[in-house]
């Protein structure tokens, strides 16, 4: 089946089997391998992407259902060489270890902060409860998401070219 999907602002025209899951379309057709597969029962959320701005588990959506829709994956977060505040905050707060849940976790957090820029700890816990992490015990993920909320608010206040201090490294 022919589909047309906008992913991270770019339009892709693809021929997919109707049964192809969105996660495999993104990973194998588009070679965007940030989103991961961690389960087979829609439990883990490692495959989470934004579909028209809503966080969805892309293992439980068919690629054909995304026809004509807009998708954002973790690869689409960085803008003009600048990390998204959530990416910075996960780095700074040690919100990841093996990194396998990270792309899905960050995308869920994206939608959460869109709805609720300054979530309480309880609100973050509830907001990311569809995303399983096996490494961090969540504590630092919660800190990172709250910190990102404040970074975004700060950014919105400041002139555009003012950049945050990012940890150095590769």
């Amino acid at each position, binding site marked *: 089946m022919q589909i047309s999907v906008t992913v991270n602002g770019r339009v892709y025209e693809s021929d997919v089997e109707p049964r192809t899951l969105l996660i495999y379309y993104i990973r194998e057709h588009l070679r965007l391998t940030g989103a991961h597969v961690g389960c087979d029962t829609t439990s883990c959320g490692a495959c989470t992407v934004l579909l028209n701005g809503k966080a969805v588990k892309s293992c439980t959506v068919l690629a054909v259902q995304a026809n004509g829709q807009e998708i954002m994956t*973790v690869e689409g977060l960085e803008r003009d060489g600048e990390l998204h505040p959530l990416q910075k905050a996960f780095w700074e707060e040690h919100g990841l270890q*093996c990194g396998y849940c990270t792309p899905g976790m960050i995308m869920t957090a994206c939608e959460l902060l869109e709805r609720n820029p300054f979530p309480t700890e309880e609100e973050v816990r509830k907001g990311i409860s569809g995303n*399983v992490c096996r490494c961090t015990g969540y504590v630092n993920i919660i800190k990172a998401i709250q910190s990102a909320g404040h970074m975004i608010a700060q950014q919105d206040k400041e002139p555009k070219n003012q950049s945050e201090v990012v940890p150095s490294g590769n």
Partner: protein
Amino acid sequence: MAINQTELRPMGKSIHRKEDPRFIRGQGKYLDDIVLPNMLYMSIVRSPYAHAKIKSINTEAAKQVPGVKLIITGEDLAKMNLAWMPTMNGDVQMVLATNKVLFQYQEVVAVVAETRGAAVDAAQLVEVEYEALPVIVDPFRALQPDAPVLRDDREKKSNHIWHWEAGDQESTEEIFKNAPVVVSQDVRFQRVHPSPLEPCGCIADYKKGTGRLTWYVTSQAPHAHRTILAMISGLPEHKIQVISPDVGGGFGNKVPVYPGYVCALVASIQLGIPVKWVETRTENIASTGFARDYHMTSEIAADENGKVLALRVKTIADHGAFDAAADPTKFPAGLFSIVTGSYDFKQAFVEVDGVYTNKAPGGVAYRCSFRVTEAAYLIERTMDILARKLGMDPAELRLLNFIRKDQFPYQSPTGWTYDSGDYEKTFRLALEKIGYHELRKEQAEKRARGELMGIGISTFTEIVGAGPSHSFDIMGIKMFDSAEIRVHPTGKVIARLGVRHQGQGHETTFAQIIGEELGLTADDVLIEEGDTDTAPYGLGTYASRSTPTAGGAAALCARRIRDKARKIAAHLLEVGDEDISWNGESFEVKGTPSRKVTMGEVALAAYTNVPEGMEPGLEATYYYDPPNLTFPHGAYIAVVDIDKGTGVVKVRRFLAVDDCGNVINPMIVEGQIHGGLTEGFAIAFMQDIPFDEDGNCLAPNWMDYLVPTSLDTPNWETDRTITPSPHHPIGAKGVGESPNVGSPAAFVNAVVDALEPFGVEHIDMPIFPWKVWEILRQNGVAE
């Protein structure tokens, strides 16, 4: 707050991780991200029966599926002598079943096709005719004389695998005979599963032209896997390159060689095309290495004042259908004999019997440090039972019996030499920080009002860093580990290690060790692991051994480089070697500190201006055979409240004070603790893999086998004391598994403590609400 990677003297600092920039961008490279030209996909047909004869296998319909390239059965493998493979515990394991299956979800047929979908379609069309056989799921039943023998391939015609023991039986019995106080408790540590978020998988890529196999695999021990693969496949070892790419969590699940790996390998060799196999979550839980499943009886002999005298432990270990527990060769029950814990017992006797049942193989996994989880849980549980019997506060009982600081190095009655510890200091910090005495007061007041509050303690000793070559080997290979460090002309470094991280932050922490030793920043040092063509041989990452073994190797290797660098520095500064001292950041002339050269300057000279007769370049290799294991310890305290209407246990507070000696990166250690406590919490309250009487696995997915979400997980409080390991080059001990080893006992002790008014002495994990509710109901308090 973390700091950046470009500071000098990086040891001990919470440096931001070097691996994060790729992971937060979705640029990690995990197994299933790798796509090779013409790559095929493999799917496995699994047994629906726990125990059955295979009467026939019909693959005709499967072959008709478009895109199917190869179907492999056990008979096909038998012709290559590959239907069975050796395991790390000295047993053999079926790769694909030939005449019978021994557990549900066992591998029966492998199907290789051009797409993922075609492979799954074809696998569903394979017809296997079974004849059901009697099933054994209870290990005690397995040992009865009339029990059907599951493993008819073995000479020994029983389900008993082995008997293992440690300690002095006679003296222990003697003490028990005369002891004024004896407590005894049966304790089961239930079967659980490590369930890393990324399941297991591999790509086998055999090229006929070069005769070389490149094997990408989710591996915690790529070098060991290369050697095992060479042994079982007959391919020469230099023609096998094992690459363990980014690994999405291991937790012990990715140590063994699994049947799927061997099938993919055979398929690629036959077809000359890369073959990818990635298991599903269900396959991961139902067929790969489980953890625990120890049925233990613990007895403590003590005097009237609560001084412990002797410990006696008898255990039945359910190993499933094949004994594939990932243990060092001489330790079929791992390091379970650490079970005397943090206490000064005069004598102990520990025995374990391994038993076959119709279940998936495994046993050693999930932050267990080779069965230390079971050992720590058992002793910490039994100490509480002893405290109850004596009417003592469990904290007082522990303080009375701790091995004292001045007793280290301490010889345990089962043969271990504990390196160092200050148990009282660590425990007192925990008691003070959580406000133990106030909590007991609060508890008394609540009890008077009929409310249920419990306080649980676990003061455990770990044993990690296997291990010294005199005792420790994996299939004959001594359990050293290694580092190879190469300094470039501009003073930047590439270093490779024989371990393989799965999220533990080695790319950062090993750069800190090496940076510290060489006067560089962590950013100056690139760490690589996991490619057996390039990294020095090591035994891999599991059992919290990376810091004890490869961490030692990295420091000593860097010092080897510094020794050579000193000579070059002397040459540059035109003084004798003996006149040069190292100030932590540069070499200086003794007495004239203004005359100095940095490692960067020395590195350039190593390629441009070495002293006459010296070999150019600046690099070294070090294979470190540790003199002993490291024995980190901790004091954990849990505070729980129980809802009388539902039996739901709420963890109000949990404090973990860990002592892993010198800390390389506090931020990373804290992350390890958070993760491990979350696992311990899940084990205590949520996780179990039960089987029905027909051997059906009742929790083969994440709908039934529960992994904690952010809503389930308590908020963790942490602290530390520092008691360095005297034998380790940088005084560091392992720590990754301590939180899983130490925490289950604290949770269970807290719940039992809360239920003390009802005479509850023990509850087996997992403590589901219905178990607590049943106790409350029986006592007429369930609301």
